[in-house]
């Protein structure tokens, strides 16, 4: 079941678009933020609300790499290996990440804490190599900075788990 909060959000977002179907991508993002990924139920609900066939919503999810059909880790690491980042060592960052976490592209650690994805340009070329963790950007990443970041994220998780 989608929460009432999410449904209310859907209503207000759709109202902002003259053409309902233009709201598909924002709706997907809101759904993903709440559920952690885009569930079948969310697909059906969005399709129904904007008046398209569910397969058209699925097409959009496939097109945008930041939308997920399966749950991802609590921290979703997106490492850019596109041209600017590649020239500045992005691929090494990605490999380092993979080695440290023991997972590959589009995989999640068994504890569900981290997932890794190799992504195209994040629009942060001036700070290449760049990466994104959930919605936060990290620029001029080096293997050392990355290790620190991972440690930091693990700690954050501890904190949140104790609080839970």
């Amino acid at each position, binding site marked *: 079941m989608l929460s009432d909060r999410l449904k209310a959000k859907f209503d207000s977002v759709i109202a902002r678009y003259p053409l309902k179907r233009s709201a598909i991508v924002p709706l997907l993002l809101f759904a993903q933020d709440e559920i952690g990924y885009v569930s079948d139920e969310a697909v059906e609900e969005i399709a129904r609300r904007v008046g398209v*066939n*569910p*397969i*058209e919503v*699925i*097409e959009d999810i*496939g*097109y945008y*790499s930041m939308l997920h059909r399966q749950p991802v880790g609590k921290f979703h690491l997106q490492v850019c290996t596109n041209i600017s980042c590649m020239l500045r060592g992005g691929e090494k960052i990605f490999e380092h990440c993979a080695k440290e976490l023991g997972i590959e592209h589009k995989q999640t650690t068994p504890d569900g804490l981290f997932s890794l994805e190799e992504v195209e340009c994040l629009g942060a070329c001036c700070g290449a190599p760049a990466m994104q963790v959930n919605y936060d950007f990290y620029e001029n990443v080096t293997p050392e900075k990355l290790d620190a970041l991972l440690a930091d994220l693990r700690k954050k998780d501890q904190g949140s788990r104790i609080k839970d």
Partner: protein
Amino acid sequence: MAEPIKLSIDGKPVTVPPGTLLIEAAKQVGIEVPSFCYYPGLSLQGACRMCLVAIEKMPKLQTACTTVVTNGMVVHTDTPEVANTRKSMLEFLLTNHPLDCPVCDKGGECELQDAVFRYGAAETRFLEGKLHEEEKKFSNLVYYDRPRCILCFRCIRVCDEGMDVNAYGIGFRAAHSEIIPNRGEQLECEECGMCIDICPVGALTSGTYRYKTRPWEVTYTGTICNHCGDGCRTTLSVRNNVVIRANNRDHSGLNGEFLCVKGRFGWDFVNSERRLKSPLLRKNGKQEEASWEEALTFTVERLKTILAEHGPGAVAVIGSNRTTNEEDYLLQRFARTVLGTNDIDHHRTADFSSLVRALTEAGATDRYATIEDISAAKSLLLIGNDPTHQHPLIAYQIRQAVRQHGARLYIVNSREIKLRRQSSQYLQVKPQGEAEAVRALAGQAPAAQDLCAGGTGALTALADALKKESDTVILFGDEIQGQTVNDLVTCGLTLPGKTRFVALGDYANSRGAADMGLLPDTLPGYQPLSNEKARERMESAWAAKIPAAPGRNIRSIFEGIRAGEIKALLVFGANPVKTFGLDNAALTGLQLLFVAELFRTETAELANVVVPAASFAEKSGTVTNTCGEVQALKRTMRQAGTRSDLEILLALARLFGQRWTYQSPEDVLREIIALVPGYDIPLPSLLVGRAVPTHPEGRPPALERPDLVFSSRDSLFTSGTLSRYSWALNSVDEAKKPYGHAF
């Protein structure tokens, strides 16, 4: 008519109507512009860039498939630049294409292969490894091979626009883009296979055809689908006496490229293991194999005894909805003149007789609509029936009319049929309310307040809308029969323009069965038996007497058997036990039950004599679709042990000492053309594969009782008894609850 447009293509002057696409204009002067995503009749895509041409005064090459011609346009399709571009486009298309032509189903009829052959792209500058993906099974009938896909989106568009199923999408992005089905890894759809047919390459392949043959190893025969009453032309591909594919290869005829799941995949009953291959004769209570001679002699001897002891009133005949016109014609001749009985009928699935009578009485026998009239109509009124399931081609043509030229579709139905999505007005009436709605529209009887949900206002709105239309095509199902047909015709003819009519009947030759007089009170061509002149005309042609009194209809035949009055029943290509829900005791009083059939049906199981009949693929002749268009079946193959119903009838007549001189189905057809009113059709048109409309004229007697006309309500995946013997039709999940899908 607006002024035509004049332009020049490769120096040739071309004149075409305004709005013509450049690619079509080029075709008219024999210039082929290669294309993949362009497909006539579908929306424009402009995806493949294969059709680029040079147009003077335009800066870059333009896509011929999306450019509309303008006056004075000067186009070049043969410059080095264009040639180079074609080559480069092909090089791109081949970057991930596996080039597995030697094992690809499409090899030999692949548009990509042909284009590479013509425009060349022998070398590639891409050194990266090709992206590979395993093939996917979307359903038992549809497979997808991603590496071969060139992303032309024809499949998506034909499914959305042609079928209104919307089963496909495009998943992912760039080089990873692929066609995705609507239910995760699976398709849930009408399984029509239109997407397979339209795929220019071997990306979508058919579950029944894949990896079975090379296309040049089979023989192709154009014939007519044997399932529903719409009469699609189809080409059967036969190899080693086995049918392995059906598609309308040349896109000719009334269906163009269309075939539904039954036409495209449901022919496999022809090669079913369960086909009867030998006559069966009941001996000591058990059906045992017998020779043809034994079976037929036994039948005739038994018939002679019964006739001698009880007279012709003790013999009845039930005909088929699928056998050819020639066979039906001979069957009623045999019943009336050899057996001397008019107790002959068939399962009537639409009230064709009432339509013919109503149009004749109104002097409007030019108002039978053809399939083409449906697709060209500006206004359509559909009463009852669910064409999506019962008449897939007609449903397709209705959608075409709405989509291609904005036809208005008006629907009166008690069910939420899928075509309501195309309708301008959809009047949902209470169950069985269709006839009442017609009577109210015709001003014969006021409608009850609860007839439709919105009160009777909706009915008035419908009537008003129809009065503003012209040349409306009215289609009606079995819900409308008897006097109501008359009301509908009378009222329809008062609408503006040339209103035309179609009665929607179930099987491949339901219409022919009625036309040919498989009826107890009607001679071929809807001439009432009581009409002395009509009777005498047939009598003199056949040099034999026809009993003047009308015979028993099919319900009375069953009653006659129960009452012990009928001792012998001959059944040709029908399964009345199932169709009419007869109980075990219903036929036990018979001294002879003779059944000519393809399979051991419920009726055949009870018979003393069963003879194995040839299927539609194994015989020639003609069938008449539900619109009254006659088309020719062509024999494609032989099935050892079987005989066509025509051969069976000729043999029976011979054993009765008759000297019938027919040598072939064509001889019978010539007689039909000469003798049957409305069937004076040009033979050559038939032989070249045309659908020839008929205009029957006659005043057959009124419908005796309401339970004589009823549709089987077959779904997309059923076809009376036949579909049980089709692996393909039973292989798809949708068949399990055919009416329950949301697409």
